[in-house]
């Protein structure tokens, strides 16, 4: 490959990570007061915001109503200033619509929708800064937001991307690695049961390598899970401590 070496001979990537290493994850739950649930997530330089409204009555046409479970309604949008080149519109373009579909599919698999028949759950995600792995960061942020909203799920949904460069599977691709045009896999996992909620691959990859790439991605998902779980526990501790203070005062 000309110019940029994505994986050095010593096994380091462009940003200094090892092949299976994630970028730094920082997250916070309960960012907004008006929404039922909200969360903010940073994975390296990719920043996403997720907001959940519901479960509530079906909005708009009643024809969408499902009588045995809740409708999961998603919208993926990217801030016009989030990418290197300015975007013309935040949502409604082809990639955003595709991402919306993927999110919907992922969360329909994870949320216990049968508990809320004839209801609607809105999940809105917004990319504030894009630096690779947009879908994955959105899923992780949305998981936290759904938990913040108190909506029961089968399990956390954790997502991570993986690539395959120079015979090595790489976890959690950054923008530079994504742009190199190699194979790219996005995986959303329910980590406790090892169930796959979404699997998508772009470009081509030899079948023999697929196993290793999926393994790398699911390992990364489980690492993400550890971080998310810690965030949720910390958040709960903080909130309960606050309630406790108020109770004793």
């Amino acid at each position, binding site marked *: 490959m000309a110019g940029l070496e994505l994986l050095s001979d010593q096994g380091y990537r462009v940003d200094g990570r090892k092949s299976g290493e994630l970028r730094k994850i920082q997250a916070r739950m309960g960012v907004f007061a*008006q929404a039922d649930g909200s969360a*903010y997530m940073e994975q390296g330089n990719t920043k996403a915001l997720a907001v959940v409204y519901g479960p509530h009555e079906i909005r708009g046409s009643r024809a969408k109503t499902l009588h045995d479970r809740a409708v999961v309604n998603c919208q993926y*949008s990217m*801030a016009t*200033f989030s*990418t290197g080149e300015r975007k013309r519109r*935040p949502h*409604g373009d082809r990639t955003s619509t595709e991402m919306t579909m993927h999110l919907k599919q992922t969360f329909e698999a994870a949320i216990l929708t049968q508990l809320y028949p004839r209801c609607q759950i809105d999940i*809105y995600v917004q990319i504030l800064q*894009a630096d690779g792995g947009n879908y994955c960061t959105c899923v992780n942020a949305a998981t936290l937001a759904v938990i913040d909203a108190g909506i029961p799920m089968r399990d956390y949904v954790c997502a991570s991307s993986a690539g395959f460069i120079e015979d090595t599977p790489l976890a959690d691709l950054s923008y530079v690695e994504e742009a190199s045009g190699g194979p790219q896999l996005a995986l959303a996992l329910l980590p406790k049961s090892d169930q796959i909620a979404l699997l998508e691959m772009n470009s081509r990859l030899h079948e023999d390598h697929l196993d290793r790439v999926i393994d790398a991605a699911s390992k990364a998902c489980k690492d993400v899970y550890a971080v998310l779980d810690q965030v949720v526990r910390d958040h709960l501790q903080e909130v309960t401590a606050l309630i406790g203070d108020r109770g004793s005062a």
Partner: protein
Amino acid sequence: MTWRARIGGRSLASSMASVVLSEAEKVYILHGVQDDLRTDGRGCEDYRGVEVETDVVSNTTGSARVKIGHTDVLVGVKAEMGTPKLERPTEGYLEFFVDCSANATPEFEGRGGEELGTEIAHMLYKIFDNKSSVALESLCILPSEHCWVLYVDVLLLECGGNLFDTISIGVKAALFNTRIPKVRVLEDDEGAKDLELSDDPYDCMRLNVEHVPCIVTLSRIGHRHVVDATLQEEACSLASLLIAVTSKGTLTCMRKIGKGSLDPESIFEMIETGKRVAKFLHVSLQNVLNQEESLGKKRQKIGFLR
């Protein structure tokens, strides 16, 4: 002074996140405002605490996040090279876009927020459509050939009343934070011109935001008016006056919104209040921005992580 009163038409408040108040709640707010004591303990001319942070999105030329109460706005400025407009060959220009995202309220999903977004963007165009707000000549690189176009994109994240003021503060802070790379024009022997962009991030041009106006919205409640109304107070107000004031106290734009009516006398009263409040607002905003700047790299970036 421009006079743009729009009476009738669709009220703006009805398209925003709405709260439903009972008659008793309305009376409570109304009586409070009459005695200069609002539900959250403020007086009629007090703002809620304003949080401003600049440089929050690293792939923009300038960005800011402003939070007033539950209203949360993120503004990003991107500088791109373009051609000057025909009628103004020696000036660059600003483009505004307001994205009322579904984050703020589910009603904005899909194209739901577009109407409000266009309305606010249009308002911003009017405010900046004069020579005194921003020195547009400084954005020109080569007359009638190249200029900087500043895309000011506003992202509405949460809506808790007083949208216009918050957005205008955000725009001012983001423009303050904007650093445009310097461009040199090289001319070869045959007269062909070539542009050379400086790649040193510190070799940049900054905008003078001293004359950038801030919007102050005055909501008429009963016989008095309040600044920085919350959603509940907006629901009690029949009409509001929106004025854009510079730090020197010059009015650059004015507009009446809401479905009710205002009598001319009260309008002058409101303008006076607006000017007084705006002066104070400009001074404190500038102080905060300068303070943040003086910290330089030592500043801890908070963003949404707190």
